[in-house]
């Protein structure tokens, strides 16, 4: 009988913060495992004996779990399935739930056998800057060959291509004091500020509050008491699973709350995540400290783990990460891992400490641990895990092996300065802990480990002081203090030890596979500045932001430069401290809610009539109303024909409308418009043109005078907001002395255009209180009336070139008025027409619109040069620049396809037959009712001289060349007789 080796027990029988009475089942790469409530995916995988969880980004080296928190560089996995599959999740922060499905990434075909690890063998051909150097030539290869190949080979997890089934919220929060981090310093700060009466938000990224206290059984009572005290304060909000990711101007911070990521499906009406914008009076950064790695060959192997992480797995999760461990550390704090591992059942822990024998090492020896002082680790053996660690006495060449399955590393602790750095707070190098420490800034304090104040008792005192100071700065006097944890503070002094110089790959960035050799290469090639070296090597640019190895890379660069790390510095951190989903950034505003959709008061009528809607800015407008089986162009031509031959009605409520009043209203409009409004009689409308300050046409529309001091201005749909801003700007800053007030009344008035030879007979049937004969309401006349019992204002204006009336009514009556006109027009064959027919009619008439008034055309370009008055107006001076008055500038003409059925396209260039010199371009096209066939408007050099000429409309993108005839843009009724009929 063969005796199987006894598998060591990896989960302790008691202790920590996991509920061993309940089990959760989860799957990793298809295999089922068990964990407990309180586990992260990482702790559950370690407890199940899983060592390799992913492959590295560039070399596809096998990687294991390296940390126990959001600083994790290695252990990224895809979580969830189908539409909820989320790539690149740090398994060290994924809260275990029943049924969780996780999948390793960046391996093909499988985790154990990864064919891309050939990159590792080729690594000397893949140095830093490799892509920049290699794929430069030939340039044409980049898009077609190099980039697709690189993209296939590189990258991390793949996002689901399915629509996201969850919803997200973007919320705003305000507080007097924001405390980031709920370790002992954060708890003390939040309680101090809360008891002083300040409104406090305590944000913790973990699903348990306590930070390092979760690894201190002796302080559990204090932690519980602190949390109870905070819960009893109504002015304190503690929010777990909330990562503060960004620190912006004026104490505005961004945070991501993972509301339901720890549940299979979000509860009803709950978002998956909330994106918080927090505006804080005072900020206390109690973000703790991150443990640093040491660069030595093979420091990335599965089985290598930060010492603090091994302690966390043992103490918080009751998981033994390895039973025969080596601790490679240069600081006393890391010695705490020895007891944690021993208590969790480790057979043996050997210490390798590069320092001479010190008090901590001596104490460890007394407790029975083997300590190799003055030694260093030069590598680890094993492919899918470690089976031995190679070490040597510093200065000697003779390495020896230590049998081990876990290598714990600690290069010391550095304050987690990402948020402070983002806020541009100055950093100071602290020789004692060999790290950068943030100073205080207005409205901001760092406390505890986040400013190098290590040890539970010291951090608690520091947090208390920071909380009291923050509350006081926010105007709240401190109350009597509460009891703090007691204890001896460890000696945090660290002798910097960045790197073991030995043969092999020593990583400073595990996620991006950046080695010490890459940093030195960057330096040799001239990237001496830390910001340049960072970008050249991509060091600290991965999703972990270099939290474990950033300073080590800076130290390697400093050594290469022959300077100190203090001089070399660290790159400035930028948001985000941890990745944030796009869904959370978008919040409510995605899909149909991406931007508000504006609808007219006739929207439901249009929908019932079968309108095809189109977007016009934020508006939805009917493009055309197709009858069953009718092709779009047939519908558009039918609608256009109705206007030319009988009568049509169009919803033009989206046009911008501005009410302008004041004793100086006429003066104000005279200065804004190129033409004059002070001479306009009451009861009349006038077409107006407005320039930008630079002399280009800004907008056009009709303005009516309702009273001597009261005007009603219309703008195009697209420019309504811009014209209002233009008016506000000039009224407030340029002519503040003028008595003029204005209000947008776009939404107050619904308006509809009734156009066609039968327009008058149609309206006459239903209008009351107004004579709409040509004598009663001449062209450009404006008057009030009633229609279907509703108040209306009738404007005799036309965009189509036909006899037309624009009927405006307070928007709530739009449907009643619209339906009454339709009923009245039935006997004449009235048709509702949409935006497409509106465009057809105005192109036939030669009216310019957005395609011509595109911000690049002058009054003269669009054939409206005569509208410039003698006096001054906005834009007049710059409109006189030589380039804008050059007679050779292309100007408005009409074009018509010689072969009526040949389509012409906007954007086509006009050239002489056989020439490739562009003389101009087509701006708008339509199939037409009256001239027949395809017509359009164009901007053409030589304009009127070319009327009657034949040119070619060339559209090289579609290999089209269509013969066109140039004409006046007025295809219909150039004498303007119909509108006056």
């Amino acid at each position, binding site marked *: 009988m063969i005796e199987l080796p006894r598998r060591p027990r990896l989960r302790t029988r008691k202790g920590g913060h996991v509920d061993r009475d309940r089990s959760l089942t989860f799957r990793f790469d298809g295999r089922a495992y068990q964990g407990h409530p309180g586990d992260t995916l990482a702790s559950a995988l370690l407890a199940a004996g899983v060592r390799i969880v992913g492959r590295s980004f560039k070399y596809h080296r096998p990687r294991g779990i390296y940390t126990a928190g959001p600083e994790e560089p290695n252990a990224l996995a895809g979580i969830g399935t189908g539409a909820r599959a989320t790539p690149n999740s740090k398994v060290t922060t994924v809260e275990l739930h029943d049924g969780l499905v996780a999948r390793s990434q960046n391996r093909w075909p499988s985790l154990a056998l990864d064919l891309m690890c050939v990159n590792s063998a080729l690594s000397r051909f893949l140095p830093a800057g490799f892509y920049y150097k290699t794929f430069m030539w030939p340039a044409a290869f980049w898009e077609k060959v190099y980039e697709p190949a690189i993209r296939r080979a590189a990258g991390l997890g793949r996002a689901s291509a399915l629509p996201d089934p969850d919803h997200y*919220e*973007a*919320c*705003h*929060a*305000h507080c007097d004091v924001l405390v980031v981090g709920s370790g002992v310093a954060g708890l003390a700060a939040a309680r101090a500020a809360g008891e002083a009466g300040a*409104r406090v938000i305590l944000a913790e990224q973990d699903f348990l509050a306590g930070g390092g206290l979760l690894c201190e059984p002796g302080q559990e009572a204090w932690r519980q008491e602190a949390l109870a005290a905070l819960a009893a304060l109504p002015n304190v909000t503690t929010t777990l699973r909330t990562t503060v990711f960004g620190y912006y101007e004026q104490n505005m911070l961004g945070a991501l709350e993972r509301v339901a990521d720890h549940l299979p499906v979000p509860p*009803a*009406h*709950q978002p998956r995540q909330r994106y918080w*914008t927090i*505006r804080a009076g005072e900020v206390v950064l109690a973000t703790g400290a991150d443990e640093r790695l040491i660069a030595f060959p093979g420091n990335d192997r599965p089985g290598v783990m930060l010492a603090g992480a091994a302690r966390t797995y043992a103490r918080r999760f009751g998981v033994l990460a390895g039973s025969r461990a080596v601790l490679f550390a240069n600081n006393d704090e890391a010695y705490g891992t020895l007891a944690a591992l021993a208590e969790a059942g480790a057979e043996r822990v050997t210490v390798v400490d590069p320092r001479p024998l010190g008090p901590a090492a001596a104490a460890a020896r007394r407790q029975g641990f083997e300590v190799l002082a003055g030694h260093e680790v030069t590598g680890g053996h094993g492919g899918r895990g470690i089976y031995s660690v190679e070490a040597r006495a510093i200065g000697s060449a003779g390495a020896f092996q230590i049998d081990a399955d876990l290598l714990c590393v600690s290069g010391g602790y550095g304050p987690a300065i990402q948020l402070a750095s983002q806020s541009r707070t100055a950093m100071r190098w602290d020789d004692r802990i060999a790290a950068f420490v943030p100073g205080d800034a207005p409205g901001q304090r760092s406390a505890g480990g986040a400013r190098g104040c290590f040890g539970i008792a010291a951090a608690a005192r520091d947090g208390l002081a920071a909380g009291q100071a923050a509350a006081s700065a926010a105007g709240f006097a401190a109350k009597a203090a509460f009891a703090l944890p007691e204890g001896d503070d460890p000696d945090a002094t660290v002798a910097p030890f960045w790197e073991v110089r030995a043969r092999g790959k020593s990583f400073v960035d595990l996620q991006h596979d950046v080695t010490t050799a890459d940093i030195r290469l960057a330096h040799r090639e001239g990237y001496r500045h830390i910001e340049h070296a960072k970008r050249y090597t991509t060091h600290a640019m991965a999703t972990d932001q270099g939290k474990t190895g950033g300073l080590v890379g800076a130290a390697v660069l400093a050594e290469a430069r022959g300077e100190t790390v203090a001089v070399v510095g660290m790159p400035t951190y930028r948001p985000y401290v941890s990745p944030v989903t796009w869904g959370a950034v978008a*919040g*409510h*505003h995605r899909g149909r*809610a991406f*931007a*508000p*959709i*504006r*609808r*007219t*008061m*006739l*929207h*439901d009528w249009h929908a019932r009539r079968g309108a095809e809607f189109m977007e016009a800015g934020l*508006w939805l407008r009917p493009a055309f109303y197709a009858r069953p089986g009718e092709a779009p162009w047939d519908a558009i031509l039918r609608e256009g024909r109705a206007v030319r031959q009988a009568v049509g009605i169009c919803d033009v409520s989206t046009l911008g409308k501005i*009410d302008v*009043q*004041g*004793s*100086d209203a006429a003066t104000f409009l005279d200065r804004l418009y190129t033409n004059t409004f002070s001479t306009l009689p009451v009861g009349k409308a006038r077409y107006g043109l407005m320039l930008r300050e630079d002399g280009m046409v800004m907008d056009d529309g009709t303005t009516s005078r309702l009273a001597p001091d*009261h005007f009603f201005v219309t703008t195009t749909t697209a420019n309504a907001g811009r014209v209002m801003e233009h008016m506000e700007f000039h009224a407030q800053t340029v002519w503040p*002395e*003028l*008595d003029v*007030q204005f*209000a*947008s*009344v*776009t*939404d*107050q*008035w*619904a308006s509809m255009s009734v156009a066609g030879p039968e327009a008058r007979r149609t309206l006459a049937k239903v209008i009351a209180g107004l004579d709409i004969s040509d004598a009663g309401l001449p062209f450009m006349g404006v008057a009030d009336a*009633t229609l*279907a*019992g*509703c*108040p209306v204002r009738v404007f005799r204006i036309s965009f189509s070139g036909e006899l037309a009336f624009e009927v405006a009514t*307070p*928007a*709530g*009556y*739009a*449907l*009643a008025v619209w339906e009454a006109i339709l009923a009245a027009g039935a006997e004449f064959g009235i048709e509702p027409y949409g935006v497409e027919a509106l465009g057809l009619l105005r192109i036939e008439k030669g009216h310019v619109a957005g395609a011509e008034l595109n911000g690049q055309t002058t009054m003269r370009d669009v054939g409206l040069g005569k509208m410039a008055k003698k006096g001054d107006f906005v834009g007049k001076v710059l409109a006189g620049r030589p380039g804008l008055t050059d007679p050779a500038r292309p100007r408005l003409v009409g074009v018509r396809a010689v072969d009526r059925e040949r389509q012409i396209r906007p954007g086509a260039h006009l050239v002489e037959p056989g020439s490739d010199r562009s003389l101009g371009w087509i701006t708008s096209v339509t199939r037409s009712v009256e001239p027949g066939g395809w017509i359009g408007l164009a901007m053409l050099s030589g304009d009127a001289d070319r009327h009657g000429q034949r040119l070619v409309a060339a559209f090289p993108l579609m290999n089209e060349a269509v013969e066109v005839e140039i004409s006046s843009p007025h295809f219909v009724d150039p004498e303007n007789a119909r509108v006056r009929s």
Partner: protein
Amino acid sequence: MCAAEPRSPLSVVAVPAHPMIAELPSAIVDIAARRGRAGDLAAAIRAEFGLDLPPPGRFAASGDTTAVWIRPETWLVMAPRGAEGALARRLVETAAGAASVVDQSHGKTRVRLAGAAAPRVLAKGCRLDLHPAQFGPGQAAVTPMAQVGAVLLQRDATPAYELVVGSSYAVPFLEWLTDSAAEFAGTH
């Protein structure tokens, strides 16, 4: 007078109902003091409506008439909907040339949001701090919410708020508001 009752802008597309949210059909009129006439306007309004035109950030109410400060020397006057144009005509007569008066009864939509959870609903789009220490009954603001420009005022300590938005934005605004309030439908 008009044969038809004015339609609500919220009728063109179905928006789900919510117990915390109700439309307040209103007459709404924009009054802007003519240059140098703010004092005359204030006196005339005080005499006619018995209310003092409020300073920035406030609203004032008398009976069922409310005046909200919305811009320098400009207020929105609101009352329950009556005869078409009646409030605007009364204000024109009252101001007697001291103000430009613009009827916005159809152009603006007024809704009420009330309930203990109302601040949490608004926090999903409103940047302002609505904590009782910062914003209370009598206060008003003009502020963007969910990409829509809105007038916000707090009527009482329930808290009950009123929101006024452009009518063509009423549907998307209410869609956001009811969506944001959905989780509180049973608890208001």
